[in-house]
Protein backbone atom coordinates (compact mmCIF):
# COMPACT_ATOMS: atom_id res chain seq x y z
CA UNK A 1 0.00 0.00 0.00
CA UNK A 2 1.62 3.29 -1.06
CA UNK A 3 1.70 6.05 1.50
CA UNK A 4 -0.66 8.98 1.14
CA UNK A 5 1.20 11.67 -0.78
CA UNK A 6 1.62 15.02 0.91
CA UNK A 7 0.11 17.00 -1.92
CA UNK A 8 -2.83 19.38 -1.75
CA UNK A 9 -6.17 17.70 -2.43
CA UNK A 10 -7.28 20.14 -5.11
CA UNK A 11 -5.02 22.23 -7.26
CA UNK A 12 -5.82 25.90 -7.37
CA UNK A 13 -8.25 26.77 -10.08
CA UNK A 14 -7.21 29.44 -12.56
CA UNK A 15 -8.94 32.63 -11.52
CA UNK A 16 -9.32 34.01 -15.03
CA UNK A 17 -12.15 31.87 -16.39
CA UNK A 18 -15.34 31.93 -14.31
CA UNK A 19 -16.54 28.35 -13.79
CA UNK A 20 -20.23 27.57 -14.17
CA UNK A 21 -22.01 26.10 -11.12
CA UNK A 22 -21.20 22.51 -10.26
CA UNK A 23 -23.54 20.00 -11.87
CA UNK A 24 -21.99 17.20 -9.85
CA UNK A 25 -20.43 17.97 -6.47
CA UNK A 26 -18.67 15.18 -4.62
CA UNK A 27 -17.39 15.67 -1.08
CA UNK A 28 -15.49 13.34 1.22
CA UNK A 29 -16.40 10.20 -0.68
CA UNK A 30 -15.23 7.04 1.10
CA UNK A 31 -15.60 3.47 -0.12
CA UNK A 32 -13.91 0.29 1.05
CA UNK A 33 -14.20 -3.26 -0.14
CA UNK A 34 -13.34 -5.47 2.78
CA UNK A 35 -10.10 -4.12 4.19
CA UNK A 36 -9.13 -2.32 0.99
CA UNK A 37 -9.87 1.37 1.10
CA UNK A 38 -10.53 2.38 -2.50
CA UNK A 39 -11.76 5.93 -2.06
CA UNK A 40 -10.49 7.88 0.95
CA UNK A 41 -12.35 11.13 1.15
CA UNK A 42 -12.52 12.18 -2.47
CA UNK A 43 -13.63 15.70 -3.46
CA UNK A 44 -14.54 16.57 -7.03
CA UNK A 45 -16.70 19.10 -8.86
CA UNK A 46 -17.90 18.80 -12.41
CA UNK A 47 -19.07 22.12 -13.79
CA UNK A 48 -22.22 22.29 -15.86
CA UNK A 49 -21.64 21.79 -19.57
CA UNK A 50 -17.99 20.86 -19.12
CA UNK A 51 -16.20 17.63 -19.74
CA UNK A 52 -14.08 16.37 -16.86
CA UNK A 53 -11.83 13.37 -17.25
CA UNK A 54 -10.50 11.48 -14.26
CA UNK A 55 -7.19 9.80 -14.93
CA UNK A 56 -5.38 7.30 -12.77
CA UNK A 57 -3.77 3.90 -12.86
CA UNK A 58 -5.61 0.63 -13.10
CA UNK A 59 -7.25 -0.36 -9.84
CA UNK A 60 -7.17 3.11 -8.31
CA UNK A 61 -10.94 3.27 -7.94
CA UNK A 62 -11.91 5.23 -11.05
CA UNK A 63 -14.73 2.84 -11.88
CA UNK A 64 -15.87 2.79 -8.26
CA UNK A 65 -16.08 6.59 -8.33
CA UNK A 66 -18.33 6.61 -11.38
CA UNK A 67 -20.46 3.76 -10.02
CA UNK A 68 -20.97 5.64 -6.77
CA UNK A 69 -22.34 8.61 -8.72
CA UNK A 70 -24.59 6.31 -10.73
CA UNK A 71 -25.87 4.72 -7.53
CA UNK A 72 -24.71 1.23 -8.51
CA UNK A 73 -22.19 1.16 -5.64
CA UNK A 74 -23.21 2.59 -2.28
CA UNK A 75 -20.45 4.71 -0.72
CA UNK A 76 -19.52 4.24 2.95
CA UNK A 77 -19.47 7.97 3.63
CA UNK A 78 -19.48 11.32 1.89
CA UNK A 79 -21.81 13.30 -0.26
CA UNK A 80 -22.71 13.28 -3.94
CA UNK A 81 -24.92 16.10 -5.14
CA UNK A 82 -26.36 16.32 -8.63
CA UNK A 83 -28.03 19.67 -9.30
CA UNK A 84 -27.80 20.23 -5.57
CA UNK A 85 -29.73 17.06 -4.75
CA UNK A 86 -28.07 14.61 -2.36
CA UNK A 87 -27.82 11.10 -3.78
CA UNK A 88 -25.97 9.30 -0.98
CA UNK A 89 -28.61 7.62 1.16
CA UNK A 90 -31.38 8.91 -1.09
CA UNK A 91 -34.58 6.96 -1.65
CA UNK A 92 -34.96 4.75 -4.69
CA UNK A 93 -37.39 7.16 -6.33
CA UNK A 94 -34.94 10.06 -5.90
CA UNK A 95 -32.18 7.93 -7.39
CA UNK A 96 -34.39 6.88 -10.30
CA UNK A 97 -35.30 10.53 -10.90
CA UNK A 98 -31.60 11.46 -10.95
CA UNK A 99 -30.78 8.55 -13.26
CA UNK A 100 -33.15 9.96 -15.84
CA UNK A 101 -30.59 12.72 -16.29
CA UNK A 102 -27.79 10.19 -16.79
CA UNK A 103 -26.42 8.40 -19.81
CA UNK A 104 -23.62 5.91 -19.37
CA UNK A 105 -21.22 4.23 -21.77
CA UNK A 106 -19.79 1.12 -20.14
CA UNK A 107 -16.27 -0.14 -20.70
CA UNK A 108 -17.42 -3.28 -22.51
CA UNK A 109 -20.46 -1.46 -23.95
CA UNK A 110 -22.67 -3.79 -21.79
CA UNK A 111 -25.26 -4.14 -24.54
CA UNK A 112 -28.20 -6.43 -23.77
CA UNK A 113 -27.40 -9.41 -25.95
CA UNK A 114 -30.94 -10.75 -25.94
CA UNK A 115 -32.22 -7.63 -27.66
CA UNK A 116 -31.56 -6.31 -31.18
CA UNK A 117 -29.54 -3.13 -31.58
CA UNK A 118 -32.52 -0.80 -31.94
CA UNK A 119 -34.14 -2.07 -28.73
CA UNK A 120 -30.84 -1.59 -26.95
CA UNK A 121 -30.66 2.01 -28.12
CA UNK A 122 -34.30 2.73 -27.30
CA UNK A 123 -34.25 0.80 -24.02
CA UNK A 124 -34.35 3.86 -21.78
CA UNK A 125 -37.17 5.41 -23.81
CA UNK A 126 -39.20 2.20 -23.72
CA UNK A 127 -38.47 1.52 -20.05
CA UNK A 128 -39.77 4.95 -19.09
CA UNK A 129 -42.67 4.60 -21.52
CA UNK A 130 -41.80 7.89 -23.18
CA UNK A 131 -42.75 6.56 -26.61
CA UNK A 132 -44.47 3.59 -28.23
CA UNK A 133 -42.44 0.85 -29.91
CA UNK A 134 -42.82 2.23 -33.42
CA UNK A 135 -41.63 5.71 -32.47
CA UNK A 136 -38.91 4.16 -30.32
CA UNK A 137 -37.59 2.30 -33.33
CA UNK A 138 -37.54 5.50 -35.41
CA UNK A 139 -35.78 7.37 -32.61
CA UNK A 140 -33.27 4.53 -32.30
CA UNK A 141 -32.47 4.64 -36.01
CA UNK A 142 -32.07 8.42 -35.86
CA UNK A 143 -29.76 8.06 -32.86
CA UNK A 144 -27.75 5.35 -34.61
CA UNK A 145 -27.22 7.78 -37.49
CA UNK A 146 -25.67 10.25 -35.03
CA UNK A 147 -22.99 7.69 -34.15
CA UNK A 148 -22.42 6.84 -37.80
CA UNK A 149 -24.40 3.62 -38.06
CA UNK A 150 -26.94 3.01 -40.81
CA UNK A 151 -30.48 1.68 -40.33
CA UNK A 152 -29.31 -1.78 -41.45
CA UNK A 153 -27.58 -2.14 -38.07
CA UNK A 154 -30.89 -1.73 -36.21
CA UNK A 155 -31.99 -5.35 -36.45
CA UNK A 156 -28.62 -6.96 -35.78
CA UNK A 157 -27.85 -8.47 -32.40
CA UNK A 158 -24.91 -7.20 -30.31
CA UNK A 159 -23.00 -10.46 -30.79
CA UNK A 160 -22.95 -9.79 -34.54
CA UNK A 161 -21.12 -6.46 -34.11
CA UNK A 162 -17.42 -5.67 -33.92
CA UNK A 163 -16.00 -4.06 -30.78
CA UNK A 164 -16.00 -0.60 -32.33
CA UNK A 165 -19.59 -0.94 -33.48
CA UNK A 166 -20.64 -2.17 -30.05
CA UNK A 167 -19.08 0.94 -28.53
CA UNK A 168 -21.01 3.10 -30.99
CA UNK A 169 -24.25 1.36 -30.14
CA UNK A 170 -23.45 1.79 -26.45
CA UNK A 171 -22.87 5.46 -27.14
CA UNK A 172 -26.18 5.69 -28.99
CA UNK A 173 -27.93 4.04 -26.06
CA UNK A 174 -26.31 6.52 -23.67
CA UNK A 175 -27.48 9.57 -25.62
CA UNK A 176 -30.87 8.29 -26.83
CA UNK A 177 -32.87 9.92 -24.05
CA UNK A 178 -30.85 13.14 -24.39
CA UNK A 179 -29.38 13.07 -20.90
CA UNK A 180 -27.98 16.09 -19.09
CA UNK A 181 -24.99 14.16 -17.78
CA UNK A 182 -22.92 11.60 -19.66
CA UNK A 183 -20.56 9.10 -18.08
CA UNK A 184 -17.85 7.34 -20.02
CA UNK A 185 -15.99 4.39 -18.51
CA UNK A 186 -12.77 3.79 -20.45
CA UNK A 187 -14.43 4.63 -23.76
CA UNK A 188 -11.46 3.60 -25.92
CA UNK A 189 -10.35 0.41 -24.17
CA UNK A 190 -9.94 -2.50 -26.54
CA UNK A 191 -10.17 -0.43 -29.71
CA UNK A 192 -7.52 0.13 -32.35
CA UNK A 193 -6.05 3.67 -32.40
CA UNK A 194 -8.13 4.78 -35.37
CA UNK A 195 -11.40 3.49 -33.98
CA UNK A 196 -10.44 4.98 -30.60
CA UNK A 197 -10.05 8.37 -32.27
CA UNK A 198 -13.41 7.96 -34.02
CA UNK A 199 -15.07 7.25 -30.67
CA UNK A 200 -13.27 10.20 -29.04
CA UNK A 201 -14.47 12.54 -31.75
CA UNK A 202 -17.99 11.21 -31.46
CA UNK A 203 -17.93 11.77 -27.72
CA UNK A 204 -16.62 15.30 -28.15
CA UNK A 205 -19.24 16.15 -30.75
CA UNK A 206 -22.20 14.51 -29.02
CA UNK A 207 -21.41 16.06 -25.65
CA UNK A 208 -21.27 19.54 -27.15
CA UNK A 209 -24.36 18.96 -29.30
CA UNK A 210 -26.34 17.89 -26.27
CA UNK A 211 -24.80 20.61 -24.14
CA UNK A 212 -24.28 17.84 -21.62
CA UNK A 213 -21.96 17.62 -18.67
CA UNK A 214 -19.51 14.75 -19.01
CA UNK A 215 -17.59 12.74 -16.45
CA UNK A 216 -15.19 10.24 -17.96
CA UNK A 217 -12.54 7.93 -16.62
CA UNK A 218 -9.68 6.66 -18.69
CA UNK A 219 -5.98 5.98 -18.70
CA UNK A 220 -5.68 6.59 -22.43
CA UNK A 221 -3.87 9.93 -22.71
CA UNK A 222 -4.87 10.45 -26.36
CA UNK A 223 -8.46 10.18 -25.24
CA UNK A 224 -7.90 12.62 -22.39
CA UNK A 225 -6.47 15.28 -24.69
CA UNK A 226 -9.36 14.86 -27.08
CA UNK A 227 -12.38 14.83 -24.81
CA UNK A 228 -11.38 16.73 -21.66
CA UNK A 229 -11.98 20.33 -20.70
CA UNK A 230 -10.58 19.62 -17.30
CA UNK A 231 -8.55 16.75 -15.94
CA UNK A 232 -8.39 15.33 -12.44
CA UNK A 233 -5.91 12.74 -11.29
CA UNK A 234 -7.02 10.05 -8.87
CA UNK A 235 -4.30 8.53 -6.74
CA UNK A 236 -4.57 6.61 -3.52
CA UNK A 237 -8.27 7.27 -3.14
CA UNK A 238 -8.09 11.04 -3.55
CA UNK A 239 -7.94 13.64 -6.27
CA UNK A 240 -4.33 14.84 -6.11
CA UNK A 241 -4.43 17.27 -8.99
CA UNK A 242 -7.08 19.03 -11.01
CA UNK A 243 -6.76 21.56 -13.75
CA UNK A 244 -7.57 22.47 -17.33
CA UNK A 245 -6.37 20.03 -19.96
CA UNK A 246 -3.91 22.63 -21.32
CA UNK A 247 -1.97 22.48 -18.05
CA UNK A 248 -1.64 18.73 -18.14
CA UNK A 249 1.94 18.80 -19.44
CA UNK A 250 3.20 21.38 -16.98
CA UNK A 251 1.15 20.55 -13.97
CA UNK A 252 4.17 20.73 -11.71
CA UNK A 253 2.92 17.60 -10.03
CA UNK A 254 5.37 14.67 -10.13
CA UNK A 255 2.56 12.10 -9.92
CA UNK A 256 0.71 13.61 -12.87
CA UNK A 257 3.97 13.94 -14.81
CA UNK A 258 4.80 10.30 -14.29
CA UNK A 259 1.32 9.20 -15.37
CA UNK A 260 1.04 11.51 -18.37
CA UNK A 261 4.40 10.45 -19.71
CA UNK A 262 3.91 6.81 -18.84
CA UNK A 263 7.09 6.29 -16.86
CA UNK A 264 7.66 3.16 -14.81
CA UNK A 265 9.80 5.10 -12.34
CA UNK A 266 8.63 7.97 -10.21
CA UNK A 267 6.63 8.63 -7.08
CA UNK A 268 3.92 6.13 -8.10
CA UNK A 269 5.06 2.63 -7.22
CA UNK A 270 3.45 -0.23 -9.07
CA UNK A 271 3.08 -3.35 -6.97
CA UNK A 272 0.85 -6.37 -6.85
CA UNK A 273 -2.33 -5.74 -4.95
CA UNK A 274 -5.34 -7.82 -4.33
CA UNK A 275 -8.59 -6.10 -5.20
CA UNK A 276 -12.15 -6.56 -4.01
Amino acid sequence: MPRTPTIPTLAERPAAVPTPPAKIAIRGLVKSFGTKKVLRGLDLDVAEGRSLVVIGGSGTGKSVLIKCVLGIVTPDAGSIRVDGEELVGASRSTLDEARKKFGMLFQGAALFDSLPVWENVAFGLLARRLVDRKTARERAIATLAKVGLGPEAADLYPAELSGGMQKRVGLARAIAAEPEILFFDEPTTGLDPIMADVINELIRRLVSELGATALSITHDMASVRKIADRVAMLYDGKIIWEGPVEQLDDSGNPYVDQFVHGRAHGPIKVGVERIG
Partner: protein
Amino acid sequence: MKVLAAVGRATLALLSTVGAVVLFALGALASGLTGRLYWRQLGRQMLEMGYFSLPVVGLTAVFTGMVLALQSYTGFSRFEAQNAIPTIVVLSMTRELGPVLAGLMVAGRVGASIAAELGTMRVTEQIDALTTLATDPLRYLVFPRLLAGTLMLPALVLVADVIGVMGGYLVSVYKLGFGPIEYVNRSFEFLETQDVVSGLVKAAVFGFLLTLMGCYHGYRSRGGAQGVGAATTRAVVSASILILIANYFVTELFFAR
Protein backbone atom coordinates in the same frame (compact mmCIF):
# COMPACT_ATOMS: atom_id res chain seq x y z
CA MET B 1 -12.70 -26.17 20.52
CA LYS B 2 -11.57 -26.19 16.91
CA VAL B 3 -14.43 -28.52 16.03
CA LEU B 4 -16.93 -26.22 17.69
CA ALA B 5 -15.53 -23.23 15.85
CA ALA B 6 -15.83 -25.05 12.53
CA VAL B 7 -19.41 -26.07 13.28
CA GLY B 8 -20.19 -22.51 14.32
CA ARG B 9 -18.67 -21.07 11.18
CA ALA B 10 -20.59 -23.47 8.95
CA THR B 11 -23.84 -22.71 10.79
CA LEU B 12 -23.32 -18.97 10.51
CA ALA B 13 -22.49 -19.28 6.82
CA LEU B 14 -25.62 -21.34 6.23
CA LEU B 15 -27.81 -18.90 8.14
CA SER B 16 -26.40 -15.88 6.34
CA THR B 17 -26.95 -17.57 2.96
CA VAL B 18 -30.53 -18.44 3.90
CA GLY B 19 -31.05 -14.86 5.00
CA ALA B 20 -29.57 -13.48 1.78
CA VAL B 21 -31.74 -15.78 -0.36
CA VAL B 22 -34.90 -14.84 1.55
CA LEU B 23 -34.11 -11.12 1.28
CA PHE B 24 -33.38 -11.52 -2.42
CA ALA B 25 -36.69 -13.33 -2.97
CA LEU B 26 -38.65 -10.77 -0.95
CA GLY B 27 -36.96 -7.92 -2.79
CA ALA B 28 -37.81 -9.45 -6.16
CA LEU B 29 -41.41 -10.11 -5.16
CA ALA B 30 -41.79 -6.64 -3.69
CA SER B 31 -40.49 -4.84 -6.77
CA GLY B 32 -42.30 -7.22 -9.11
CA LEU B 33 -45.66 -6.88 -7.42
CA THR B 34 -45.56 -3.11 -6.90
CA GLY B 35 -44.53 -1.88 -10.34
CA ARG B 36 -45.26 -2.61 -13.93
CA LEU B 37 -45.08 -6.17 -15.17
CA TYR B 38 -42.82 -6.76 -18.17
CA TRP B 39 -45.19 -8.88 -20.24
CA ARG B 40 -42.71 -9.37 -23.05
CA GLN B 41 -40.15 -10.80 -20.61
CA LEU B 42 -42.77 -12.97 -18.94
CA GLY B 43 -43.97 -14.37 -22.26
CA ARG B 44 -40.46 -15.13 -23.41
CA GLN B 45 -39.62 -16.91 -20.15
CA MET B 46 -42.88 -18.89 -20.17
CA LEU B 47 -42.15 -20.07 -23.67
CA GLU B 48 -38.57 -20.93 -22.77
CA MET B 49 -39.41 -22.77 -19.55
CA GLY B 50 -42.71 -24.33 -20.53
CA TYR B 51 -42.79 -25.11 -24.18
CA PHE B 52 -39.13 -25.85 -24.71
CA SER B 53 -38.99 -28.10 -21.65
CA LEU B 54 -41.74 -30.34 -23.02
CA PRO B 55 -39.46 -32.84 -24.82
CA VAL B 56 -37.20 -33.49 -21.85
CA VAL B 57 -40.08 -33.66 -19.37
CA GLY B 58 -42.16 -35.81 -21.72
CA LEU B 59 -39.34 -38.31 -22.26
CA THR B 60 -38.68 -38.51 -18.54
CA ALA B 61 -42.36 -39.07 -17.83
CA VAL B 62 -42.99 -41.75 -20.44
CA PHE B 63 -40.07 -43.90 -19.37
CA THR B 64 -40.86 -43.41 -15.70
CA GLY B 65 -44.42 -44.59 -16.27
CA MET B 66 -43.16 -47.56 -18.25
CA VAL B 67 -40.62 -48.64 -15.68
CA LEU B 68 -43.14 -48.17 -12.88
CA ALA B 69 -45.56 -50.57 -14.54
CA LEU B 70 -42.84 -53.10 -15.23
CA GLN B 71 -41.34 -52.95 -11.73
CA SER B 72 -44.70 -53.15 -9.98
CA TYR B 73 -45.63 -56.10 -12.14
CA THR B 74 -42.53 -58.11 -11.30
CA GLY B 75 -42.94 -57.28 -7.61
CA PHE B 76 -46.69 -57.47 -7.22
CA SER B 77 -47.26 -60.61 -9.25
CA ARG B 78 -45.50 -62.49 -6.46
CA PHE B 79 -48.63 -62.08 -4.38
CA GLU B 80 -51.19 -61.87 -7.13
CA ALA B 81 -51.68 -58.12 -6.85
CA GLN B 82 -51.09 -57.17 -10.48
CA ASN B 83 -54.47 -55.42 -10.54
CA ALA B 84 -53.02 -52.64 -8.42
CA ILE B 85 -50.60 -51.59 -11.18
CA PRO B 86 -52.77 -48.89 -12.80
CA THR B 87 -53.42 -47.33 -9.41
CA ILE B 88 -49.76 -47.48 -8.47
CA VAL B 89 -48.71 -45.85 -11.71
CA VAL B 90 -51.23 -43.04 -11.58
CA LEU B 91 -50.74 -42.26 -7.89
CA SER B 92 -46.95 -42.37 -8.09
CA MET B 93 -46.94 -40.16 -11.15
CA THR B 94 -49.37 -37.50 -9.97
CA ARG B 95 -48.27 -37.32 -6.35
CA GLU B 96 -44.53 -37.87 -6.50
CA LEU B 97 -42.68 -38.68 -9.65
CA GLY B 98 -44.36 -36.22 -11.98
CA PRO B 99 -43.53 -33.12 -9.95
CA VAL B 100 -40.18 -34.30 -8.56
CA LEU B 101 -38.73 -35.60 -11.80
CA ALA B 102 -40.06 -32.67 -13.84
CA GLY B 103 -38.68 -30.33 -11.15
CA LEU B 104 -35.24 -31.93 -11.25
CA MET B 105 -35.11 -32.02 -15.04
CA VAL B 106 -36.21 -28.39 -15.34
CA ALA B 107 -33.76 -27.41 -12.60
CA GLY B 108 -31.00 -28.85 -14.75
CA ARG B 109 -32.27 -27.22 -17.90
CA VAL B 110 -33.76 -23.92 -16.87
CA GLY B 111 -32.09 -23.26 -13.51
CA ALA B 112 -28.70 -23.64 -15.12
CA SER B 113 -29.52 -21.44 -18.09
CA ILE B 114 -30.95 -18.69 -15.87
CA ALA B 115 -27.84 -18.72 -13.70
CA ALA B 116 -25.57 -18.63 -16.72
CA GLU B 117 -27.52 -15.85 -18.42
CA LEU B 118 -27.86 -13.59 -15.39
CA GLY B 119 -24.30 -14.39 -14.37
CA THR B 120 -22.99 -13.29 -17.75
CA MET B 121 -25.16 -10.18 -17.60
CA ARG B 122 -23.66 -9.43 -14.20
CA VAL B 123 -20.01 -9.83 -15.18
CA THR B 124 -20.46 -7.91 -18.45
CA GLU B 125 -22.13 -5.03 -16.53
CA GLN B 126 -25.46 -5.51 -18.30
CA ILE B 127 -27.25 -5.56 -14.94
CA ASP B 128 -25.55 -2.28 -14.00
CA ALA B 129 -26.59 -0.92 -17.39
CA LEU B 130 -30.22 -1.73 -16.60
CA THR B 131 -29.96 0.26 -13.40
CA THR B 132 -28.53 3.27 -15.19
CA LEU B 133 -31.42 3.09 -17.67
CA ALA B 134 -33.80 3.56 -14.72
CA THR B 135 -34.94 -0.07 -14.90
CA ASP B 136 -35.02 -2.17 -11.75
CA PRO B 137 -33.16 -5.41 -12.60
CA LEU B 138 -35.14 -7.33 -10.01
CA ARG B 139 -38.37 -6.29 -11.67
CA TYR B 140 -37.14 -6.67 -15.22
CA LEU B 141 -35.02 -9.83 -14.97
CA VAL B 142 -35.85 -11.74 -11.81
CA PHE B 143 -39.58 -11.36 -11.23
CA PRO B 144 -40.72 -12.52 -14.71
CA ARG B 145 -38.54 -15.61 -14.33
CA LEU B 146 -39.92 -16.44 -10.89
CA LEU B 147 -43.45 -15.97 -12.12
CA ALA B 148 -42.89 -17.98 -15.30
CA GLY B 149 -41.37 -20.86 -13.31
CA THR B 150 -44.21 -20.87 -10.80
CA LEU B 151 -46.82 -20.87 -13.56
CA MET B 152 -45.21 -23.18 -16.08
CA LEU B 153 -44.04 -26.04 -13.90
CA PRO B 154 -47.59 -27.07 -12.92
CA ALA B 155 -48.51 -27.04 -16.61
CA LEU B 156 -45.52 -29.23 -17.41
CA VAL B 157 -46.37 -31.60 -14.56
CA LEU B 158 -49.93 -31.96 -15.79
CA VAL B 159 -48.55 -33.00 -19.16
CA ALA B 160 -46.03 -35.29 -17.44
CA ASP B 161 -48.84 -36.95 -15.45
CA VAL B 162 -50.76 -37.78 -18.60
CA ILE B 163 -47.68 -38.97 -20.47
CA GLY B 164 -46.52 -41.03 -17.47
CA VAL B 165 -49.87 -42.81 -17.22
CA MET B 166 -49.63 -43.37 -20.96
CA GLY B 167 -46.23 -45.01 -20.46
CA GLY B 168 -47.68 -47.34 -17.84
CA TYR B 169 -50.57 -48.09 -20.15
CA LEU B 170 -48.27 -48.98 -23.04
CA VAL B 171 -46.24 -51.47 -21.04
CA SER B 172 -49.26 -52.94 -19.24
CA VAL B 173 -51.38 -53.39 -22.33
CA TYR B 174 -48.82 -54.39 -24.93
CA LYS B 175 -46.40 -56.32 -22.75
CA LEU B 176 -48.20 -57.50 -19.64
CA GLY B 177 -51.54 -58.40 -21.21
CA PHE B 178 -53.87 -55.93 -19.49
CA GLY B 179 -57.15 -55.05 -21.21
CA PRO B 180 -56.97 -51.44 -22.44
CA ILE B 181 -60.36 -50.37 -21.07
CA GLU B 182 -59.81 -52.17 -17.84
CA TYR B 183 -56.46 -50.40 -17.40
CA VAL B 184 -57.89 -46.94 -17.97
CA ASN B 185 -60.88 -47.61 -15.70
CA ARG B 186 -58.65 -48.90 -12.94
CA SER B 187 -56.39 -45.87 -13.29
CA PHE B 188 -59.21 -43.53 -12.39
CA GLU B 189 -60.91 -45.80 -9.86
CA PHE B 190 -58.92 -44.67 -6.83
CA LEU B 191 -57.62 -41.35 -8.13
CA GLU B 192 -58.76 -38.33 -6.11
CA THR B 193 -58.62 -34.67 -6.99
CA GLN B 194 -56.26 -34.12 -4.10
CA ASP B 195 -53.67 -36.45 -5.65
CA VAL B 196 -53.41 -34.32 -8.75
CA VAL B 197 -53.75 -31.01 -6.93
CA SER B 198 -51.02 -31.83 -4.43
CA GLY B 199 -48.72 -32.66 -7.33
CA LEU B 200 -49.51 -29.36 -9.03
CA VAL B 201 -48.92 -27.40 -5.83
CA LYS B 202 -45.59 -29.16 -5.47
CA ALA B 203 -44.80 -28.23 -9.06
CA ALA B 204 -45.54 -24.55 -8.40
CA VAL B 205 -43.31 -24.61 -5.30
CA PHE B 206 -40.52 -26.37 -7.21
CA GLY B 207 -40.87 -23.95 -10.11
CA PHE B 208 -40.47 -21.02 -7.78
CA LEU B 209 -37.51 -22.58 -5.98
CA LEU B 210 -35.57 -23.58 -9.07
CA THR B 211 -35.98 -20.21 -10.77
CA LEU B 212 -35.12 -18.48 -7.50
CA MET B 213 -31.89 -20.49 -7.22
CA GLY B 214 -30.99 -19.74 -10.83
CA CYS B 215 -31.68 -16.03 -10.38
CA TYR B 216 -30.00 -15.72 -6.98
CA HIS B 217 -26.77 -17.43 -7.96
CA GLY B 218 -26.62 -15.80 -11.38
CA TYR B 219 -27.41 -12.34 -10.05
CA ARG B 220 -24.69 -12.53 -7.42
CA SER B 221 -22.01 -14.18 -9.52
CA ARG B 222 -18.68 -12.44 -9.94
CA GLY B 223 -15.24 -13.16 -11.28
CA GLY B 224 -15.71 -13.73 -15.00
CA ALA B 225 -16.28 -17.02 -16.75
CA GLN B 226 -15.20 -19.09 -13.77
CA GLY B 227 -17.64 -17.28 -11.51
CA VAL B 228 -20.47 -17.85 -13.95
CA GLY B 229 -19.62 -21.55 -14.12
CA ALA B 230 -19.60 -21.83 -10.36
CA ALA B 231 -22.93 -19.99 -10.16
CA THR B 232 -24.47 -22.42 -12.63
CA THR B 233 -23.32 -25.42 -10.63
CA ARG B 234 -24.54 -23.93 -7.37
CA ALA B 235 -27.90 -23.08 -8.92
CA VAL B 236 -28.54 -26.65 -10.10
CA VAL B 237 -27.26 -28.35 -6.94
CA SER B 238 -29.11 -26.07 -4.53
CA ALA B 239 -32.31 -26.20 -6.60
CA SER B 240 -32.23 -30.01 -6.68
CA ILE B 241 -31.67 -30.28 -2.95
CA LEU B 242 -34.33 -27.71 -2.14
CA ILE B 243 -36.81 -29.52 -4.40
CA LEU B 244 -36.25 -32.80 -2.55
CA ILE B 245 -36.55 -31.12 0.85
CA ALA B 246 -39.62 -29.10 -0.12
CA ASN B 247 -41.16 -32.25 -1.56
CA TYR B 248 -41.27 -33.83 1.87
CA PHE B 249 -42.82 -30.82 3.54
CA VAL B 250 -45.49 -30.24 0.91
CA THR B 251 -46.37 -33.95 1.09
CA GLU B 252 -46.67 -33.69 4.85
CA LEU B 253 -48.85 -30.62 4.47
CA PHE B 254 -51.28 -32.50 2.24
CA PHE B 255 -51.30 -36.06 3.49
CA ALA B 256 -50.15 -36.18 7.10
CA ARG B 257 -53.16 -36.53 9.34
